[in-house]
């Protein structure tokens, strides 16, 4: 971190912990943003000096007002600009003159309104750079710090949220107010709450790093509409997880497949920006959530409970049906139903009626009172085979809901294992749910949700225990040659490489390619075939033809020189009859690769995340079956192997149904070379190696076909 990123971290300190706040552009009209911001700060009982700046006003809400921020005698830590966008730059300039380094710009009317707004935003950035100011916004709701030492609500949210240990960052201001309302109803508190709007200066990444160091924050939540710098986001998440152990949960909206249709390669077509985002988040340890409900389901689990040591869950229920639903969901989420020890079984048998199920899921029976729940929880939670407990309740006439809720609270507080509850229903169980919420027991309407959060918490715990993998650094002696090939192609104005060039490029990077020659006559084709060894493959070489098979431009299994001579003529005639205008450079002759399993590896350069590597089952149906996995380059060896294991193709490669094992190490090596190439040569836009023929274990793999697209 350096430059402005470092400056942001320093200036963010005063954005969240100011001793004095100037509200620049405040006014007296209730119901307007400039007034409500001032009122929010007052109502939130800010522990510092409040300084309204409002030309033409002597005072606002009983507080002395200043014409300009530069008129204030005291030092000002934070400037909150609420002037309209047309004069926001003037206010920021004065902040600079006053020596204010930390600013929140609430005003709208910037990038979101078009070109004029873009210029205004640029003007703000120039001023910020001139005075070493860092600002959040523009076009945002504001910031909140619930720390009682500060108690700052510099936003136009309706209310100050309760204090908690969840840090929430949102690109959407409107969503913030909905989230605050939702959280209030569920008794969820926040440490910091930030709407960062257009993120012209301080982005989500800077705020994430701030929350990493923030002692009040235990869980970091984000709502993002666009990822401007995917690699920086990934790095921030990795740093946060490794250095602070805080989970990062993100809703990234816009799950569309835009842009994919315009792609030239299979990889480009398969790697939509959303799929890349999914892969990148997972790679960085980010937990991606589909909606606000899921986000907070997980957030309260991380916020209130310790992480489970392993994945063995115990279910206690007074209702059979919901117990089965919870069991199904647990299995679906990859959890194990804990097998109780003999001692636990003995305790349960003693405490529960004969009709109860003393095995997991434990059914305490519909008429269970608090005593029975207590006995079951005490027995189960102490079992060393249990890593966490799911308590389900349905309200029968004799069910003492509040007492059972208190028992759940006691058990959770007494033992250091996670406890989650599902008191099913709404009206009748309401008081019990409130007891759980007030005592920070994660509660969910559906027991299935517990399996999801338990699984996420378990996987996050596993991630924390894993040693981070480093990208593989391999020596590439042929790199200068690769650069020459790409430079030449670019100089010729081409947007993809001829096969002979593409093969040379792969060869330079040490890929397993077959020997080949470009023949420009039938005689040369025969000679080339003799040189590379039979059987051979002949393929047309023309910069006007991308899909060679469609125009009769490929001949497989050529076994003699004479056959090669004839095949040359056939191929050229066929291509000329299909595409009379095509410029033919010749026919490429290579040794035919022995039969093996066809896989695809490829690369696409994503606008946010940079080079993305693909692996999948290859051949012509790759886009039909979509059996593919992605990772952002550079890759580590384990990551490359994981990509292969993710694919259904792995079963075939791993010797399914008595077949021989395939050379998975060879694929890993090819993926690592591709990763290295994609990072070293930004001019490569997309590429497919399809198929890569994988032979039996120890025999390697071979590139059978390659397409390389270059330029922007």
């Amino acid at each position, binding site marked *: 971190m350096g430059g402005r990123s470092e400056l942001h971290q320093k200036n963010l300190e005063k954005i969240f912990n100011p001793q004095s706040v100037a509200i620049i552009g405040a006014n007296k009209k209730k119901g307007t943003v400039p007034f409500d911001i001032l009122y929010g700060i007052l109502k939130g009982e800010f522990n510092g000096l409040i300084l309204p700046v409002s030309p*033409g006003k002597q005072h606002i809400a009983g507080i002395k007002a200043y014409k300009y921020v530069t008129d204030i005698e005291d030092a000002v830590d934070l400037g909150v600009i609420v002037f309209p966008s047309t004069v926001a730059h*003037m206010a920021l300039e004065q902040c600079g003159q006053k020596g204010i380094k930390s600013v929140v710009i609430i005003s709208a009317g910037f990038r979101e309104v078009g070109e004029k707004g873009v210029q205004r935003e640029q003007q703000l950035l120039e001023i910020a750079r001139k005075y070493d100011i860092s600002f959040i916004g523009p076009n945002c709701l504001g910031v909140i710090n619930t720390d009682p030492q500060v108690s700052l609500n510099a936003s136009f949210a309706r209310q100050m949220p309760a204090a908690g240990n969840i840090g929430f960052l949102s690109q959407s201001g409107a969503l913030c107010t909905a989230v605050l309302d939702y959280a209030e109803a569920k008794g969820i508190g926040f440490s910091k709450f930030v709407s960062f709007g257009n993120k012209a200066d301080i982005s989500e990444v800077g705020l994430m790093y701030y929350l990493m160091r923030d002692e009040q924050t235990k869980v970091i939540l984000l709502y993002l509409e666009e990822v401007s710098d995917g690699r920086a986001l990934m790095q921030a998440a990795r740093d946060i997880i490794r250095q602070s152990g805080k989970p990062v949960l993100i809703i990234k909206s816009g799950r569309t497949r835009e842009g994919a249709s315009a792609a030239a390669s299979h990889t480009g077509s398969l790697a939509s920006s959303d799929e890349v985002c999914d892969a990148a988040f997972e790679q960085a340890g980010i937990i991606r959530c589909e909606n606000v409900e899921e986000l907070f389901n997980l957030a309260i689990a991380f916020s209130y409970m310790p992480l489970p040591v392993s994945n063995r869950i115990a279910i206690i229920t007074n209702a059979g049906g919901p117990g089965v639903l919870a069991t199904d969901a647990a299995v679906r989420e990859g959890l194990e139903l804990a097998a109780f020890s003999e001692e636990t079984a003995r305790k349960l048998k003693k405490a529960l009626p004969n009709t109860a199920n003393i095995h997991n899921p434990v059914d305490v029976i519909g008429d269970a009172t608090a005593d029975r729940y207590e006995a079951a929880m005490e027995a189960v939670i102490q079992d060393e085979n249990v890593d966490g407990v799911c308590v389900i309740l349905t309200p029968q006439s004799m069910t003492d809901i509040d007492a059972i809720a208190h028992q759940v609270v006691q058990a959770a507080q007494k033992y250091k294992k996670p406890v989650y509850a599902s008191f099913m229903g709404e009206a009748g169980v309401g008081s019990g749910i409130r007891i759980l919420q007030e005592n920070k027991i994660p509660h969910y309407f559906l027991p299935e949700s517990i399996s999801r959060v338990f699984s996420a918490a378990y996987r996050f715990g596993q991630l924390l225990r894993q040693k981070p993998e480093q990208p593989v650094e391999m020596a590439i002696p042929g790199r200068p040659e690769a650069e020459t090939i790409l430079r030449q192609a670019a100089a010729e104005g081409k947007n993809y490489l001829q096969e002979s060039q593409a093969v040379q490029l792969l060869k330079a990077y040490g890929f397993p390619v077959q020997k080949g020659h470009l023949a420009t006559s039938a005689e040369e084709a025969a000679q080339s075939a003799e040189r590379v060894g039979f059987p051979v493959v002949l393929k047309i070489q023309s910069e006007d033809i991308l899909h060679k098979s469609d125009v009769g431009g490929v001949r497989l299994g050529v076994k003699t020189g004479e056959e090669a001579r004839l095949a040359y003529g056939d191929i050229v005639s066929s291509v000329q009859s299909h595409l009379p205008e095509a410029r033919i450079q010749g026919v490429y002759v290579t040794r035919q690769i022995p039969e093996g399993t066809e896989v695809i590896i490829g690369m696409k350069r994503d606008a946010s995340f940079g080079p993305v590597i693909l692996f999948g089952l290859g051949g012509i149906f790759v886009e039909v079956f979509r059996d593919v996995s992605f990772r952002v380059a550079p890759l580590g060896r384990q990551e490359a192997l994981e990509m292969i294991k993710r694919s259904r193709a792995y079963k075939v490669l791993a010797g399914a149904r008595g077949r021989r094992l395939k050379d998975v190490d060879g694929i890993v090596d090819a993926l690592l070379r591709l990763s290295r190439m994609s990072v070293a040569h930004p001019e490569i836009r997309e590429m497919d190696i399809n198929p890569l023929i994988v032979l039996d274990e120890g025999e390697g793999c071979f590139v059978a076909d390659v397409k390389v697209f270059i330029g922007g």
Partner: protein
Amino acid sequence: MEIKEIKARVIKVIAEVLETEASVIGEEDNFIFDLGADSMQSLQLVAGFEEEFDIEMDEDKALEVQTVGDAVDFIAQYL
């Protein structure tokens, strides 16, 4: 009409609408940033100028005018 007179009458309207002393209004003053006009007062200013000078201005363009001096020049175009 001379610019000097337009300016005096413009300042008179501003002082009335924004309820401030005419003596504190300068030619370089920005309606919002220096004089504290809000969006409603900006509309009232446009209406006030139209009435004062008996003209009809392009409202969108009039609302884009930022300073007292620019308002004087803008109004002069209609006279």
